[in-house]
């Protein structure tokens, strides 16, 4: 996923940072297709509670996840600042509802630290690493893991 960037000379990565469930996260900018305002979605039957429903993105039907719920940080509360980050990886496009988007972060590869050794396997899988920005910690979301955990019907 990060390979493509490495090939193109610089080791500088750009991330978009956002908050979900009160924590700071970021996604690599090349994975993000667009950022949209929250609009009501069509609910899907028999889905886990982090699946909000499906949305029409210029004719494509894309599922929208509540990122906070996905990370077990409770449901995202309604707010004016809520946005949907449309991201795609391995041919799948999804939308992630987050509380708000903050900024674009440019960092060297070296600034990305390994995820601290925490107990929860699920958390370790969904976080690629952490970046510290002005004393705050930003978690790099592993989009592949977010996609993987949702093959529709839970086993």
């Amino acid at each position, binding site marked *: 996923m990060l390979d493509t960037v490495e090939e193109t000379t610089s080791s500088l990565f750009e991330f978009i940072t956002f908050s979900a469930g009160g924590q700071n996260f970021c996604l690599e900018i090349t994975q993000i297709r667009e950022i949209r305002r929250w609009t009501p979605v069509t609910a899907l039957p028999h889905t886990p509670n982090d699946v909000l429903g499906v949305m029409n993105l210029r004719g494509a039907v*894309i599922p929208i996840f509540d990122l906070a719920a996905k990370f077990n940080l409770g449901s995202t509360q309604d707010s004016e600042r809520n946005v949907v980050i449309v991201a795609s990886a391995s041919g799948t496009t999804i939308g992630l509802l987050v509380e708000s988007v903050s900024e674009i972060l440019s960092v060297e590869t070296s600034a990305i630290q390994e995820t601290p050794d925490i107990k929860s396997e699920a958390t370790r899988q969904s976080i690629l690493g952490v970046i510290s920005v002005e004393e705050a910690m930003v978690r790099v979301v592993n989009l592949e893991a977010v996609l993987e955990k949702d093959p529709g019907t839970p086993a």
Partner: protein
Amino acid sequence: MSNSIRDTFFEECEELLEALVEGLSQMEDDDHSSDVVNAVFRAAHSIKGGAGAFGLDELVHFAHTFETVLDMVRDQKLAVDDTLIQIFHRAGDQLANLVESARDDTPLEGDGGAAILKELEAYLGDEEEEEFSFDALSFDVDNPNAGPTIELDLGGDIAPSDGQAHKFSISFAPKPSLFSNGHEPLLLFDALNELGDLTCEADLGNLPEFDSFDPNSAVMSWKLELITSESETTLHDVFEFVEGLCELEISVEEVAATAPLAEAPLDNPAASAPAETPSEQPAQAPITGSPDATPTAASESSKSSAPAKAAAAKPAAKQASGGSSEPKGPKATLRVDLDRVDRLINTVGELIINQAMISQRIEELDLPTVAHLTNELESYKLLARDIQEGVMAIRAQPVKPLFQRMSRIVREASDATNKKAKMVTVGDSTEVDKTVIERLADPLTHMVRNSVDHGIETPERRAELGKEPQGTIRLSASHRSGSVFIEISDDGAGLNREKILEKAKEKGLVPEEADLSEQEIDNLLFLPGFSTASTVSNLSGRGVGMDVVKNAVVALGGRISITSVPGQGTTFAIVLPLTLAVMDGFVISAADQTMVIPISTILETIRPNPKDIQAIGTNGKVISVRGSYVPIVDVSKNLGFSQGESDNGIGVLLLVATERQGLTALRVDAIHDQRQVVIKSLESNYGAIKGVSAATILGDGKIALILDPEEIVNLSPSQNKSEILKELQMDNRHA
């Protein structure tokens, strides 16, 4: 990679077999002209050639025998009669079997075609068995055409030539790989020669000394001049298969106003000795040895002389072959990756949705004078529909190949049952979506087999009844009001309703005292686990019943019905949607969600009277429909959108027939509209969801789920709860 070439071969085989069957049926209709026989011969021959390259010996041997007999017909050494045509038909079937068995790597059924091979060989008699052998080639060429493709009818030539003669100079330098892939420059030159007047000149400049000669290297190159009225594209087509295997340059020099240029070298016997040919780039140093001592040079001289001779003989050859090659030129077609077509179809689907959205927005604006706007919108709508139809037509394919396969099934089935039956097809140029055709093959095969096995009587019985001994199976296809109609009818005995009813009662499918109408009895055939043949025959009774046929048709969004007249025959009628990309549906609402239910699944809608609804058990409800009680399923509850009692009133009931539960009434809050919707897959970005078959986008841009009544009924609310519990446990584990 060699697999993709193999695939291409089998794809071609299918086309060739089609041509073969078509030729045979023309011959059957007393058209024994050389064109027709030639076409059949060519098909068998091409299959043999391809099969040889892949080392499919059995196929090669059979095709060769077949081809030899056909050759005798072609040379008028053998007269065509009905027996021969029948043998040819069966040989064609056997050829198809062999191709299939080679493709799927499955063993042949029965005697492996030994009988038909013997019959063919009987015709050979004294005819000299011509030796043939092929070496299996190994292919390592990248095939850019891998994957499914679709043939596009371009309705004309891609690049029509302007009819004027041009002089092309071609420089052609093969790479070693050209030879190692089994290509032969001489054949290319022959092909060019057919396009016009060709002069050929070999460049021996790079020829090494004999001592250092490497037979695997490619040291020759040629300069060719062609005077032809064909376009440059046609020239490139000749070299299509050696693309990348040679260095090729084609340039147009001038409009050839004078012919002498072309004639001069033809009369020049020097062509047989290339070293002497006047050359613009005179042969360089190495040739000084003795050209005759070099085997390459010798072979080269024959190569370059051959086209020249061929050119001289051309006018005569053209006349001879003119009859067969010219009148039936294939339509210009274009092979296109299926993905591209599907992407286009998607985009057009979005255009239609977008058009609906714009119309709806403008309506919402409630402008004072919208007359002009409405007109423009109307044309926009029509244009969008036109484009959609055009794009859909790309996916449409004639049902002819499918029908041809069925005539083979009729032959096989009548052989196996000792009955006589022929197949008549009507409307085989009717075009239907490619996927529909593919998914219709199995159900049709089954129905045709059934018609022969159960419908047509034995020849003796038919004679007793005063019918022709040979039964007729009629297969017809037509377009009617946006749907495709396919009918399979036989002139057999008709359905034995007494026996059907008896059987159904015996199997407990209907209650003992039931009094069913004829139509209802006929429809019993579609129930799972029903089979009328008292003994399991060779053909039917393979565990596939009419219920499977019905499921396949319903899965395509279609319907199937039976009509039968005792003593006169049975007709199965299938109605299918023209395309799988759009669908007619009811727009309904349940639990504040707008959803779509396919119209094809709905039998009727009921606005129930509260007193018709009865409670049964703790949560169950039934409604009495014309005397029988039908269970009511609440759509929003079964989808898990609402728990407890819904307070939206009594709602509307949609009566659907399901496989597992029979008649069921689906309760929804309201029906809003009936409209055509564009089907969008949910699975590409999310996954399959129970009870939902797909999604669509409504005029307001919102997504509506397309429900699958069958699954909704099977999802009982209690099951939902356990699923929800399971999900909760899953979530806890993640925590």
